[in-house]
């Protein structure tokens, strides 16, 4: 196989592996860095670094574990850049978080499928609230002023909707397993 073919094959393999691992990497970064926008930037940096260093990847290891290992370094870089020398995850906590996410990555696809189905059945007003938070990207305080409610009430309601969805996901996965 010539060099060009090998490069093409390598690029295809990387794209395939990254598409599978990206949701886990995003969850890892989002858990360790508050705020979606910062997290998105860091995930982008991680993707670039993984692509650049793909030759170093050992195919005998799960790709998601390698990606999360790189992600940990980029999160620490983010802490340093933003001078977050306190109130950040310790090295050990970042390691545990990576292990937890890697361990649950096997069923990730099923959980996302279940979420799609659960969203279809969400009551309209719950859906409106989620859209204000995730589509309009409003913080709880802004949702409260838009809906003539209080920030505390909005926070609680958001948590309840997420909780309801989490339960729905678990129910559906359990039903699938039984069926």
């Amino acid at each position, binding site marked *: 196989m010539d060099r060009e073919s090998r490069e093409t094959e390598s690029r*295809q393999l990387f794209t395939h592996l990254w598409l599978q691992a990206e949701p886990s990497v995003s969850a890892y970064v989002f858990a360790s860095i508050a705020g979606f926008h910062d997290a998105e930037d860091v995930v982008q940096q991680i993707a670039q670094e993984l692509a650049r260093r793909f030759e170093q990847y050992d195919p005998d290891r799960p790709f998601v574990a390698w990606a999360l290992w790189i992600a940990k370094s980029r999160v620490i870089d983010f802490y340093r850049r933003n001078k977050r020398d306190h109130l950040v995850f310790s090295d050990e906590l970042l390691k545990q978080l990576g292990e937890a996410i890697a361990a649950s990555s096997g069923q990730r696809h099923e959980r996302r499928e279940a979420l799609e189905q659960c969203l279809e*059945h969400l*009551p309209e007003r719950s859906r*409106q609230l989620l859209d204000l938070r995730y589509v309009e990207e409003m*913080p709880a305080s802004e949702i409260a002023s838009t809906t*003539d409610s209080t920030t505390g009430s909005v926070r609680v309601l958001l948590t309840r*909707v*997420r909780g309801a969805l989490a339960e729905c996901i678990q129910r559906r996965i359990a039903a699938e397993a039984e069926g």
Partner: protein
Amino acid sequence: MNVNDELLDRFLDGDISPQEHQAVLSWLEHKSEHVGLLAERAELQVDLRRSLKRRGIQYDALDTVQHTADSVQHTADSVEPDDHVVRDDLRFPVSPRFALVVAVMATAALLVFAFFGNRNSERATNVNKIAQIVHQSATQWVKERQEGALIGPDTLQLKLGLARLNFANGVSVALQGPAKFEVVSGNQVRLHSGILTAHVPESAIGFRIETPALQVVDLGTAFGVSVGSDGLTNVSVFEGEVEVDAQAETSGGVPSQRIVEGQAIRAARTSTTIETVDFETEPFEQAWPINSGVLQTTGVMKFVSPGPDFVPGRFEDSEHIVVFPERRSVLLDSSLRVDVLEPGEYRRLRDQPPLSLTTGKRVRSYLLQLNPSDRNRTMVMGQITFDRPILGLIASSRKLAESDSVLGHAEGIYEQNRRGIEAPRKDPPGKPDRDTVILAADKRTLILNLGAGSALDQIRVIVDDPNLTWNAESK
């Protein structure tokens, strides 16, 4: 302190006091199971955001529905927890912003109704507008189409010219005539003949283009498709990757093929195999700039060819001011030093007072570059018109370098030494200033006049790039 789901959610949102933050960290360090709970919650939020954004874009498209959410019977089974997740006391006031939200939500509810409840043909007609012609240039249609026209499921026949359609889910398609193009749904189109280029954002991954020979399914990408009168189909991938399947009935069982950026394939109408061919950009060079937000270039200004090799640092052209698209949909959430903010004629960009662009908006960026091989050339002029307003220009080396990490192309290679417009030399007696940069009053057109012997290296153009769907743009 009791760490519950509500506190974890606020921890993830960054909506938390330092004391609460410390309490969550201590709680996480106390038991490894707690870390697992945080991981689950983070995963749910990431997936929710992604799914709702994708759906939200689709719902926004359905702008003609006048019914309110209350008029729609919700018939699906509920995942609502005790005593209603969102109570009636969460009232939604009638403000313009809210009115939009209500319209979107009502539309969403109607969509659910349309899919799961009794179908209503009248309503279906209202919600079937799924794309809009947002730009056209020198077009001749078989059936007259105006810029701004909303398109439902329909076949468009373009005899001549270029037209761009924006779909509700963020997909943009540029058609080059002669072409016969059919809008099937928000997620599926058919190209019977002609040339198109498409940019498909992450929110619309899975967008499908059918031709007589192939089905092309986007996996997050930009690509071009050409179909001859005999159905012969060429697909070239500019960014990302697509999946292709042969259409021929006898191709059952032939596995899908993935085509990544820089690759091209070809298939005939009756062919059961897909042939790899050389990556050619030429067929798509007229349509592609329109997908990239550039409506027109004149003079020595030239939009770069599509494809992974045509990025800053990898491609040079000493004859033209080359326009590289760099980044899309970048949220500028901190100030960025720029050289020009307002329309006007600028002769000494380096002498401008320091300016900052702090928008909180989403922007895209382009790099204009000229590496003249002939310093003795005569004056050159180039003009470029964008589809959205220019928010700022960067022309000094230091500011260009500062903005590379935010606005530079992900695959670009940027020099760190002198890059901006060369400091003007002393003009010969009787000669006007050499280099002139004009930002037109509409802020969409940029004109560069470059004097003999001057060396423009690079100018970065920052253009407004809101997450508007076509219905919002049309208002």
